[in-house]
Each structure stands twice: as C-alpha cells, then as structure tokens.
C-alpha cells in the first residue's frame, strides 16, 4: 500500500545536538510535502511545506527540510536543538489525485535533554 514512513519512533538528544528526522513516501508523481509539529499539550502546527522550486525549504523555529525526488524523501533537520524542541513531529504528503487529502506518517517523538 502507498504510504508515508517515518523511520524513527523516538529520538533522544542533548541540547545543541543536530537533529535529522527521516521521511519517505511511496507515491509516484508530483506530491506536496509537509512537516507538522505537536508540542506537549498543544495543537498540531505547520513547520514547513514543499510544493515546488528549491528543494531545500526553511520553516519556522530554525527547521529546514530537503526534498530528494529520486529518494522519495523529505527529511527534516535542525542544526542545534533546544529543550523547547521536545515534541512529536509528523511528516505528511498530499499525493497526486488525492485532492486536498494528506497522508501522515506515524510520527517521531523527539526528547531534548537539557
């Protein structure tokens, strides 16, 4: 079945460490890509999105993601994490012919230790 895969279920880091979360999808054709974040007790929020153009996109709070079409990947990165980045992160894909519907990955819980 076509899907969105996030490879890490739980990542534990120390402050100032670099973060990279993997996201792969199995849909062919043109896709729109998103990363969402859910801080403890808060709503899901949009971190960044990719529709077209420069495959390296920058989002809020110092996050960036790189779209690599040949690898069907959209990995999220942050060079130096802070304790406040502790959250759950979701990759989402709007596949072709799926109108406005998003398919989400299972999520990655990131815990940043002070």
């Amino acid at each position: 079945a076509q899907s969105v895969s996030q490879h890490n279920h739980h990542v534990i880091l120390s402050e100032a460490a670099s973060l990279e979360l993997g996201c792969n999808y199995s849909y062919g054709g043109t896709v729109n890509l998103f990363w969402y974040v859910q801080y403890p007790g808060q709503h899901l929020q949009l971190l960044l999105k990719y529709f077209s153009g420069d495959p390296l996109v920058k989002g809020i709070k110092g996050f960036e993601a790189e779209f690599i079409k040949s690898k069907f990947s959209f990995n999220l990165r942050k060079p130096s994490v802070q304790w406040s980045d502790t959250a759950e992160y979701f990759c989402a894909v709007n596949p072709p012919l799926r109108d406005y519907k998003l398919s989400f990955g299972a999520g990655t819980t990131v815990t940043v230790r002070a």
Partner: protein
Amino acid sequence: SQTIHQWPATLVQPVGSPLSLECTVEGTSNPNLYWYRQAAGRGLQLLFYSVGIGQISSEVPQNLSASRPQDRQFILSSKKLLLSDSGFYLCAWSEDSLGNGYTFGSGTRLTVV
C-alpha cells in the same frame, strides 16, 4: 484571522451510546473540512472530508458518520459507540490550494467504557 473550534475536549461514553463531536471554523468561507483520528504510534488516519455543505467523503469504513449542515460546521457522529472507537479525534480545515496546509483543532479525547 481564521480560527477553528472543536468540542468537547474530553468525553467518556459507555459502549452503545451515541456520539456527536462538533467542529466550527471562523474567518473563512467554503473551507475544506476533515476529521482525523490520531492513535499513538500510528499517526493520523483520515476518517472523513468535505468540500462543501452536504458533501461528505468517507475514507475508512467505520462505526462513524459525518455531516456538514452549514458551511463552517462539521460534525462527527455515531449511533452506537464501540470500545474500538476510543481515540483522539482531530478536526482540520484547509483552503483549496493547500497553500497553508491544514489548520487543526485542539482535538477531542474520546474514551468508550
């Protein structure tokens, strides 16, 4: 600015009882509306979506149904809840272009006992 309201925040219901969760959007017109269920370790599963009043598409056969009686109102219902209906339900809206992705509500934690 646009806002989305979802209630109640938590709900405990007995098996076999009915369900009605409500979601309303303010500050926009003709939004696309969505109901998702979030399960730990399994991400978000799309249950229903709607592109207009009375237009409902079901993604997964469920013991649930959805209705859109007004442009900015989306209701998730069940006639008889099952234990397996327990979960965290999220409402979301988007524009047609998806330019801003989805905006999510605060969610309803449903426990069926």
